[in-house]
């Protein structure tokens, strides 16, 4: 691990102030990082993938609450621990898909450390990204992608480019996408609210840039809109082990059926996309239709239509389709 200056701060203003140099035009790979749970950042610092010169400890900022908003939704603080968020009564009762997604990720120890803001910024598990001696366009732009002709079994089939096929590894982000979360950030230039669909970027020819967060900006909280009344939601995660493993394919489904027809549907996929993958194509196949096996299959086909497979991850196409179908079945079955 490289040396760094550790700064402790008492409030958001101090944190943003200390991060000012990063906001003033240091290149990406910028030298300031906010440290909350540390489960991604310290891991990557030990691997010399992350080499910040300044680390700002924000883990005790008072951003660890869930509160109701006036519009019937919730505000989730950025430093709220994954465990606390998953077990919060409001989240369990009104946003079950988020609770399920959080509890399906990592281990109990890691969930006790990892935060909302950190989970949004979780980095890919692509083995070449994590290994500084191999070429990787995300880690070192312009060096090439080792995964395209290498070990790519766990990598993305949706949204890839010729420069990067890395998967977004988060479960929480998939549920947040299906719930249409808004991410609230604060920086030297002021505050911004970013819809989650506008937060994560496709790799294109700049895979090193993963979100629209600017250097020096701090995620302060996330808001979820009021739940659609009468909705049911499910997070289904398929993986190589029963627990403590990243998704090969996952689906977050929020659905409401009225009078035998689907009248609200949101679907997001994990484990298959370069970012948490909202599938409006699948949603279009479902809205207004009868919730049955044929409809679900059509939705699954639509969701994976643009899949682009590599040498080892072709199995993910059918796996993701069946994941969608099964999640829809679970979410719409009558008890």
């Amino acid at each position, binding site marked *: 691990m490289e*040396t760094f200056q550790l700064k402790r701060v008492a409030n958001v203003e101090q944190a943003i102030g200390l991060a000012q140099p990063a906001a003033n035009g240091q290149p990406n790979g910028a030298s300031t990082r906010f*440290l909350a749970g*540390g489960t991604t950042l310290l*891991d990557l610092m030990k691997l010399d993938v992350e080499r910040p010169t300044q680390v700002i400890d924000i*883990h005790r900022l008072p951003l660890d609450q869930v509160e109701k908003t006036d519009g019937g939704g919730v505000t989730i603080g950025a430093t709220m621990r994954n465990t606390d968020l998953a*077990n919060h009564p409001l989240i369990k009762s009104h946003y079950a898909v988020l609770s399920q997604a959080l509890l399906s990720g990592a281990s*109990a*120890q890691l969930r006790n450390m990892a935060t909302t803001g950190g989970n949004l910024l979780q980095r890919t598990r692509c083995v070449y990204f994590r290994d500084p001696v191999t070429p990787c366009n995300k880690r070192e732009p312009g060096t090439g992608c080792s995964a395209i002709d290498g070990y790519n079994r766990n990598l993305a089939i949706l949204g890839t480019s010729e420069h990067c096929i890395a998967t977004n590894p988060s479960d929480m982000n998939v549920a947040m996408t299906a719930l249409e979360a808004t991410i609230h950030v604060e920086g030297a230039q002021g505050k911004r609210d970013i819809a989650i669909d506008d937060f994560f970027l496709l790799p294109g020819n700049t895979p090193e840039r993963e979100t629209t967060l600017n250097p020096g900006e701090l995620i302060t909280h996330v808001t979820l809109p009021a739940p659609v009344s009468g909705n049911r939601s499910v997070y289904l995660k398929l993986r190589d082990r029963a627990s403590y493993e990243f998704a090969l394919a996952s689906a977050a489904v929020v659905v409401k059926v009225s009078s035998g027809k689907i009248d609200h549907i949101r679907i997001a996929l994990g484990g298959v996309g370069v970012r948490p993958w909202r599938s409006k194509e699948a949603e279009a196949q479902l809205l207004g239709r009868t919730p049955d096996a044929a409809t679900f299959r059509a939705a699954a086909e639509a969701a994976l239509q643009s899949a682009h497979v590599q040498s080892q991850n072709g199995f993910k196409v059918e796996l993701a389709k069946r994941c969608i179908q099964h999640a829809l079945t679970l979410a719409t079955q009558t008890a």
Partner: protein
Amino acid sequence: MSKEPQKPDASADDPVTVLERPTRRSFLTRVGAAGVAIGTGQLHSVALADTETSQEAPAAATASTDSATTHVRLNVNGSDYELDIDPRTTLLDCVREHLHLTGTKKGCDHGQCGACTVHVDGRRVNSCLSLAVTHEGEAVTTIEGIGKPGALHPMQAAFVEHDGFQCGYCTSGQIMSAVALLHEPYGHNDDDVKEAMSGNICRCGAYSNIVAAIQQVRRKV
């Protein structure tokens, strides 16, 4: 002649004498101390820890002019410690190398195996993925803090009773996870325990006995 006792000063460079019946602990301590000294140049911290750090931390600690270190007050197992440490020091390395609480083990050092599990304010965490200096004002508990020989924590006793280990390397992490689990919202079944304990890997495969030990304690609590 050959039975004459060795002169005290003859031992230092004599590898036979140095290696004579080393205990596992004394061997590891020597290797560990050398590793720290060479790896980070932190002779100061090692010396500090050797003088049995306590509330009355030596004046040298606070007067340190070594700008590469950060001053930190830590509460571990109910005792306060004042240390000057490299800010890169993980909580794991801090308790093992600076406080000499070697019950907590380093496995993968990347949050994947659970051997380093400790409690921070009563919650289990991977101490390898946490910087020691960020834990000022929090209560850290290691395996040394939950029980001791003759006065085992019920979970420690249950692990002994059910043979919840073979080599023992993962055991302190398993027990720290299991103790925290007692107060976490998991279901009553064996499958719930397996899910709750999935962050603790046992290379020997003592899982079924570990589950039995945990379930015995859970039924009593």
